[in-house]
């Protein structure tokens, strides 16, 4: 049985996702996190996802691909992806790659809940 990598809390019609691991690394781990996130959209029909990165202190470019695909999937089905709670260092990863222009990034969960 695979261990839990994310937790999901429903706040109204928004699925708020927290990451269990402090480091989002290695392809197998990222693949499993991606599978869990896609399941929320494709099997559970969730259309508003708020990913809270407060627990995360390290993330490499391998995770960016999953976020891009998730954003694309949600856009296809008329949903929306919002990211929040991103540390200063990780935020640099998004700004340097200009993914902050494509992905909606807000400061905290409260702001995120109000941005759908």
């Amino acid at each position, binding site marked *: 049985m695979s261990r839990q990598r994310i937790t999901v809390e429903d706040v109204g019609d928004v699925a708020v996702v927290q990451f269990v691991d402090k480091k989002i*690394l290695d392809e197998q781990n990222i693949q499993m996190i991606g599978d869990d996130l896609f399941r929320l959209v494709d099997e559970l029909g969730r259309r508003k996802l708020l990913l809270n990165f407060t627990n995360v202190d390290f993330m*490499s*470019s391998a995770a960016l*691909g999953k976020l891009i695909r998730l954003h694309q999937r949600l856009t296809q089905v008329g949903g929306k992806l919002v990211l929040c709670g991103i540390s200063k*260092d990780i935020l640099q990863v998004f700004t*340097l*790659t*200009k993914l902050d222009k*494509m992905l909606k990034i807000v400061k905290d969960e409260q702001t995120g809940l109000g941005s759908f």
Partner: protein
Amino acid sequence: MTDDRASSHDLLVSSDLAEVRRVQDLVEAALQANRFGESDQFAVKLAVEEALVNAIKHGNQLDPAKSVRVRYSVDDEQFRIHITDEGPGFNPDDLPDPTADDFLERPCGRGVLLIRSFMTTVDFLGCGNEVVMSKIKTPPDADQ
């Protein structure tokens, strides 16, 4: 005066992505021993992650018969690392700009951009199968 915390290491890493974590732990311990700040540690760990994954996955094609040589040194002023794989190499100047509009939605190809952005110096040597990177330690009052 000698620096007791300064160290240099020479490792041979198998072409297994699980090995990246082991190298990261060693590098992190060496940076902490030399009092690199949080942001410097993040920068080095990110660059080492990206370069080592590239070497194992794209350079050595995950071939268990091939290995990656990792040499790094750290002292009170800078961190420096050489990562050499057994692949055919590549020309980093041939990589597309991952921030271009028509590339932005592609899921991969951002590692070299991040390495160049986060490290102080980056050079690709030989046929492109060796990367040498350094990070000058940020003064404590500037690392906030």
